């Protein structure tokens, strides 16, 4: 497995806050969980209608999803297993074949 399988079970979640309350709630939870933000580049850019993609590790994804459900924030899981997506991109795999 590429990268020692470290992304196994990690997720990428898309959210679009619909209110200031949701934006601030996301700001707080992302800061607390120290997530890897794919877009925008900083949590301070998250405001109403900002398309937000966040990579959350496997051991924190359940915490985040529970939080979002409790806060009634809509979300969509765009990548359910990041390791599989990494393998599919095949940069490392084709490199190994070339070597």
């Amino acid at each position, binding site marked *: 497995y590429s990268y020692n399988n470290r992304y196994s079970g990690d997720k990428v979640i898309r959210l679009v806050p619909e209110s200031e309350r949701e934006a601030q709630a996301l700001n707080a939870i992302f800061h607390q969980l120290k997530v890897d933000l794919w877009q925008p*580049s900083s949590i301070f850019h998250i405001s109403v209608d900002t398309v937000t993609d966040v990579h959350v590790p496997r051991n924190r994804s359940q915490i985040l999803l529970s939080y979002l459900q409790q806060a009634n924030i809509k979300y969509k899981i765009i990548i359910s297993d990041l390791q599989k997506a990494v393998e599919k991109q095949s940069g490392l795999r084709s490199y190994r074949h070339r070597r």
Partner: protein
Amino acid sequence: SVPGYNYEVYHSLGEIQSWMYHLNKTHSNLIHMFSIGKSYEGRPLFVLKLGKRSRPYKRAVWIDCGIHAREWIGPAFCQWFVKEALHTYQSDPAMRRMLNQLYFYIMPVFNVDGYNFSWTNDRFWRKTRSKNSQFRCHGVDANRNWKVKWCDEGASLHPCDDTYCGPFPESEPEVKAVAHFLRKRQKQIKAYLSFHAYAQMLLYPYSYKYATIPNFSCVESAAYNAVNALQSAYGIRYRYGPASSTLYVSSGSSMDWAYKNGIPYAFAFELRDTGHFGFLLPETLIKPTCTETMLAVKNITMHLLKKC
């Protein structure tokens, strides 16, 4: 251009450097490779000068890819651009005109340390790999480290943040080397193009404030024509506009610095896609992404040659 080199796969840093060495040897009529300095970890910062050596003074276009390590489609495009230039110089009148009348300075991998790290350790690494003495976090956002409203809105002073602006402007040797190079050629370089991912946007200044640039009509029409050309390939829509309002406000960006440094056409591309794959754009999409982007870059270059 290089026998057996596959432009539809992602290449490691070592492979890209070997590719540049090879081109430098085999296409000396159109390519000259040189180093503008060393990265934090001591790697050479290679640039390809592409163009026909036809007259002593020629205007130039600067293109860099891979400022952010995880945005692999950027370096893939830079390689594609060079390949296309070499392959079509004889057959495409527009390309021949571009390479005869201009030089292109291409930096296929700006953030060499970060790019290498994204291949060996952390696929989603963004920053450089410089060390911080006080914190255990590495790296500076190379697109927040330029001396233009440095570390203002949209950048962070905390070393562990992904938008960390650095301890001072041009603290990163990569940023300092490119800035030095561009400053020395201020009169020669007429366009600055930087390639990122992902969002499908074509951005121009300003990033650091909400304001209209003095040559707005020329830049805006160049952007409009470029995205239309891009869309003509596969129907992919790119948004375009000032970075501050089209994307978000961010200070210390290379595009804003290039513009402030006197380069009239400064653009940042955010290539495919819009989030389905994100940074993990499959290799099967390298060809269409690069093909459409090529049309946009050629369009901007022809606009530059027409003198708006």
